């Protein structure tokens, strides 16, 4: 089976997903276990594939044995392998987190939830490792459809949010499809590597610009690039906690990765990517400021985090737009860091709402007593979002600033600095409410009683606390090991021809 690692990454979650309704009929525990096992296999396969790719160069896997451009290939290079590892790992953690979260729902809904969740993970994994632009579209749709339903699972508000996301998301997918349609019309190929070879010879400037813009806008909507982020705050803030945790952590990142992949690996020699990236850069800079300011204005923790995501996704876009080595280091590192950090933060927000029913920051008084471990992790993750050492966020921001300085883009430097301070404002606000504010008089008594009961109890079920703490440790570890990650993985993920 070792020879099939690239396929296993996607196939096992997919196959287990489609059989989960049957397993769920037999026993819901069986469905849970098989889902976890599938994601574990995906994780191990990604690790194996990544290792292979690092040792022996990128790994091309031909489906059905047909060589590209006729067949579909999976390409495991350090970048896609690394991202697949990340997606499957976070997928696994969130799955574990979801189990107690869904315990009150009927078994059948649980089954459907796990099925769709696995499909969503499998779709994202497929997007990551594929080397074929049309295959990317198919998997984009799998993950999106699953995500619409999972978001709508959060209640009536979520249904509207999910529907709006469906409209925007499908339009985005259509734009992307049209974009690759143009590429197909110009070259006759759908394979990324083949396209990259054929496109420079194509003399069709207008059509190429249209294709690039369509692809970038299409995927830009999916990654919630400002000003195409309209769907995100509602969707993130009304979906069930595990779903938000997962899609906020990885879904937008995978689209960001796809933009990077297509701009730098497919369109790199055509010159149109540069135009598109310039556009993206300024959009991103505006988005960073907008997202941060909107986040400050929110009282609902979930919405605050959602707007923070808008800003942070723009960090990634900014790094990609810079297009120099440090910028891309920063962007790719930030994909990793933000996935872990924001996933962690949303899981924490979800746990708080699950345990106490509180979403409003102003009611967070004494939260540090109710959930000491969770809030400790929150602080670590918040520091990472702000970009303070030694957490992960610092290093990605450092590379972004380095890239901006190197490119002489002082506007970006100013934006990054301002954004750090704005981020600090809204995260320290939460921390102060949780740690420093005293509850109102009546509540204080009630709290004391609760505390005396809870002192003997673990704050959250272990399967909810464990993912949170693991991600929190991850935030610190990624910070300490950031150079190692760059030297071992990200360095090889740069497009060809770069230093």
């Amino acid at each position, binding site marked *: 089976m070792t020879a099939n690692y690239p396929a296993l990454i996607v196939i096992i979650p997919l196959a287990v997903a489609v059989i989960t309704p049957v397993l769920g009929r037999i026993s819901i525990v069986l469905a849970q276990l098989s889902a976890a096992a599938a994601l574990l296999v995906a994780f191990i396969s990604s690790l194996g594939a990544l290792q292979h790719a690092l040792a022996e160069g990128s790994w091309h896997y031909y489906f059905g044995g047909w060589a590209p451009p006729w067949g579909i290939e999976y390409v495991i290079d350090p970048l896609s392998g690394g991202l697949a590892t990340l997606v499957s790992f976070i997928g696994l953690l969130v799955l574990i987190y979801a189990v107690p979260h869904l315990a009150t729902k009927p078994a059948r809904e649980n089954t459907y939830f796990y099925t769709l969740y696995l499909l969503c993970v499998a779709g994202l994994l497929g997007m990551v490792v594929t080397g074929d632009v049309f295959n990317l579209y198919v998997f984009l749709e799998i993950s999106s459809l699953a995500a619409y339903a999972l978001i709508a699972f959060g209640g009536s508000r979520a249904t509207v949010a999910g529907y709006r996301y469906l409209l925007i998301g499908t339009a985005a997918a259509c734009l992307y499809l049209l974009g690759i349609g143009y590429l197909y019309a110009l070259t006759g190929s759908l394979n990324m590597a083949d396209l990259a070879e054929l496109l420079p010879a194509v003399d069709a400037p207008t059509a190429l610009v249209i294709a690039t813009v369509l692809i970038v806008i299409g995927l830009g909507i999916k990654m919630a690039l400002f000003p195409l982020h309209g769907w995100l705050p509602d969707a993130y803030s009304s979906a069930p906690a595990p779903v938000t945790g997962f899609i906020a952590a990885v879904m937008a990142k995978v689209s960001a990765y796809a933009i990077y992949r297509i701009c730098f690996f497919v369109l790199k020699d055509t010159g149109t990517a540069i135009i598109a990236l310039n556009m993206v850069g300024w959009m991103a800079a505006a988005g960073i400021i907008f997202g941060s300011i909107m986040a400050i204005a929110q009282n609902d923790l979930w919405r605050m985090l959602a707007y923070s995501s808008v800003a942070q996704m723009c960090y990634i876009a900014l790094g990609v737009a810079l297009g120099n080595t440090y910028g891309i280091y920063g962007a790719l590192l930030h994909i990793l860091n933000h996935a872990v950090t924001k996933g962690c933060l949303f899981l924490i927000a979800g746990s708080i709402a699950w345990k106490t029913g509180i979403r409003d920051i102003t009611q967070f008084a004494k939260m540090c007593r109710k959930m000491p471990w969770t809030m400790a992790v929150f602080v670590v993750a918040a520091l990472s979002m702000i970009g303070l050492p030694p957490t992960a966020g610092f290093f990605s921001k*450092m590379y972004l600033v380095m890239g901006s300085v190197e490119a002489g883009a002082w506007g970006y430097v100013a934006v990054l600095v301002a954004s*750090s301070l704005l981020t600090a404002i809204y995260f320290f606000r939460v921390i102060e409410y949780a740690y*420093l504010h005293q509850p109102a008089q009546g509540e204080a008594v009630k709290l004391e009683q609760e505390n005396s009961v809870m002192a003997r109890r673990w704050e959250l079920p272990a399967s909810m606390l464990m993912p949170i703490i693991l991600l929190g440790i991850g935030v610190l570890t990624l910070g300490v090991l950031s*150079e190692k990650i*760059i030297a071992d993985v990200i360095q090889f993920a740069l497009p060809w021809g770069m230093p």
Partner: protein
Amino acid sequence: MTTEFFLANRPLWAVLISLVAAIVILANDRRHNIREAATLLAAVGKFAIILSMMPAVLAGQIIETTPLTLAPGIALHLRADACGLVFALLSSFLWIATSVYNIGYMRALKYGHETGYYACFAVALSSAIGIALSANLLTLFIFYEILTLATYPLVFHARTKEAIDGGHKYLVYTLAAGQLLLVAIIWTMIVAPGAGFTAGGFLAGKAPVAVLQVLFVLFVLGFGVKAAVMPLHDWLPTAMVAPTPVSALLHAVAVVKAGAFGFVRVAGFVFGPALIKDIGMGPLLAWLASITIIVASLRALSEDGLKRRLAYSTVGQLSYVVLGTAIASPLAFLGAIFHIVAHAFMKITLFFCAGAIYATTHKENVSEMKGIGRQMPLTMAAFTIGSIAIVGTPFWVGFVSKWNLGFGALQAGQPVFIAILVLSALLTTGYFFPIVYTAYFGSSEKELSYHEAKPSLLYPLLITAAVSFILGISPNFGLNFYDLAIQAVNSVFAASSGLSGGGL
């Protein structure tokens, strides 16, 4: 092998030991004695480790370790050189005194939340040592930011409205400065890839003058906040709402000195004295520092709160260090480095006294302290020693550094700064003398009985008072601060030939 490994990585252990202590402290939330024992052990251990490096450094060796790579070409590089060791020795030694004092003070005042307090204290010390021993800008920056974060909870520790506001202000100032510093550091990294601190500077000729000027301004802004250079000083008096040990060790020694030490590093080891002259930024900074010295002293005159008065005094005194680095002549540099030491001992004594008075009698304003010299004679004796020293009276420690600064100004051909020093000394007398006078000769309404502070508060302040006297007579006493400072200055100026005076 293992011994060698241990010895070679001593700078790392020096940093880590209090981090480990912080974890131990957090794990023993309800066991007070273990918690406090851990603090003390870590303090003594840290001091021992740093002390063990002193002979080697004095002999001209440099102990360095690179446990981790932070960015391509840049490691987490810890290095014990003479300049860093001065600061490291100083803060670790004073941490021992403060730990003892801490235990007494916190038990007397019952603030609550003490686990977090001790843990943050330990982390802050870790990062202070990290700053002292870091061998490149990025390492320094990381510890610098950790220091900011670790001291923020200490500022708002009392959790009153005032304390929280003070914390806010502190955070806003330091985080904003940190970002500017980050930009400056990254720019430096781009201009001179992979460079670590080099005695005499490494930036010369690497970039156009205009760029270097902007960089210098960014560095000044970045370090200036922690070093409380006016007009960036405003957080420091506000931060005095923190418990007194925090003010004593962090707001007189570790945090603010981290900023001042940053100036020393930037002036001596990034730009180099020659380059600062060439780009013409020295006088600018020197005048900024001078203005700070005078204005802060004037402000101190008008403050009634003892701690706030001390805070403004700190603002003024810190600018001596900045002034010394800005004048950038060998003797001025020596004065600057030694003033880090001198001011630390003097000011910690004064803060300890203020804290002891507060913990014993709950008085915090100067006007309330009539006759307190009769009530707490030993404490006030120590306070008097500190005051005399800080004014710059000959044969006390403050004199040594000011003397050097003055000669440094002459050496650089800028005698005008001597006038500043003299004026400042007069003003300092102006705001310390009334305190001493009130304490001994003021008549209070109530009859005061002998009521000395308890031993855990008293002994630390007596020791530091004694040290600030002894160092005045023999600046090399015990820890060889003066020799280390001279060695640091020699290394900086040996590299840049052609400057007046050369070495010492």
